[in-house]
């Protein structure tokens, strides 16, 4: 048995035991006394094996900064039959909106969230906290010292993200830039028109 195979097998056994808690690259390297590069290579072989092998119902994913073994998507419907109750309940639109605002603007106060939505978000924030998706992360150094909210690692896991950098870009950011450009262009136009007309202000 070659050493690469042993490493891959050892990693698989660790990941199996850790289950949904997963393990980071750093942790896997420390546990196997290998470099992160070696571990990465071995994890790639493990993943390739899962993906190639038709007989395999599991695969490797990276969520919330940790590597985890998970079942392949194609067996989701079958697995659902194992559950007496459907596992995940739909979140309300309000909770999703609040979660999106917190995810992108974190750390953020409740008032800031309220401002974006134009409605009070207190209840949604409580729900999200009790579901483990958001947490309190210090207080703003301002009058009233309001609580700052941030998302948790559990949020990243459940929403299939590895880190906050994986959040899809906000759709309108580019449009806004264009908007600014447009605005500036218009401003220039007006300035020029004014100058030509000899009107100073």
């Amino acid at each position, binding site marked *: 048995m070659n050493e690469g195979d042993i490493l891959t097998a050892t990693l698989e056994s660790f990941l199996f035991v850790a289950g949904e808690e997963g393990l980071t690259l750093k942790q896997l390297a420390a546990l196997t006394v290998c470099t992160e590069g070696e571990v990465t290579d071995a994890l790639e072989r493990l993943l390739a094996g899962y993906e190639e092998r038709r007989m395999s119902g599991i695969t490797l994913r990276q969520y919330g900064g940790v590597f985890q073994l998970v079942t392949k998507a194609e067996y989701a419907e079958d697995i659902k039959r194992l559950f007496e109750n459907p596992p995940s309940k739909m979140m309300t639109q309000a909770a999703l909106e609040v979660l*999106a605002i917190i995810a992108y603007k974190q750390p953020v106060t409740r008032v800031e969230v309220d401002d974006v939505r*134009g409605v009070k978000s207190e209840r949604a924030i409580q729900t999200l906290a009790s579901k483990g998706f958001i947490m309190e992360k210090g207080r703003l150094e301002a009058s009233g010292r309001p609580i700052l909210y941030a998302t948790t690692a559990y949020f990243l896991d459940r929403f299939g993200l590895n880190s906050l950098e994986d959040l899809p870009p*906000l759709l309108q950011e580019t449009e806004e830039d264009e908007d600014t450009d447009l605005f500036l262009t218009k401003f220039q136009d007006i300035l020029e028109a004014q100058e030509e007309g000899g009107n100073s*202000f």
Partner: protein
Amino acid sequence: MSYNVKLEAFEGPLDLLLHLINRLEIDIYDIPMAQLTNQYIEHLHAMRVLELDELSEYLVLAATLIEIKSKMLLPVHEGEVFDDEGQEFDMEEDPREELIARILEYKKYKEAAVQLKESADERAVHYTKPPTEVEAYGAVAPIDSGDELNVFDLIGAFQRMLQRRRLKAPMSASITNNEISVGEKMDEIMSQVERKGGTCDFEELFEEGDINGLIITFLSILELMKRSDIIVEQHGNFDRLQIRMQMEERTYE
């Protein structure tokens, strides 16, 4: 014109505004204020069941809309523009600007919420397993490894447990063909208890079977108790229940 407005469909005044802009096919960068304001107020009228708290939020925005509308009606003088306080302000300032910015900001996160939902749905098709219990490897986990713990670790753990507890292996549909009647089960229980020398743990009788099977077993025990064929005893409050045979075996079928 009257509308059938479902209040629950809107997440707040900005959501309503966004809905109107989409429905009326309005250019968000050049909002016809009079039209939008009228539509917004008409909707407010139709939404009768608003809670006071929510209503005030809708009304604040209505006031803003009216204010912008009236500002836009002010004559614009060539070269010189004043706001209500008579202060000169920059010509390029559009009274709608702040409103547009707010709507766009809200729209951005509303769309992000949709994407998050999709992302969560994609994640939801990959199932995981709970971590293997330490005891399986004869080790003792030091739980205090010097890491910073916070209360949200507790909540996360609790939520995972709830998820896990929804996993209940056997499917009832499968076992229906081997289902036995209460009468048969009563015989089975009596011979099981007899084999064990006349007494057995209550729990031993429930070691296998799906939910239907367990219910049948339970009903059978109740019936046997009623007939005084068995006695169910418990010595301490949290001790295991004991089943003891009361009479000689009988047949019920």
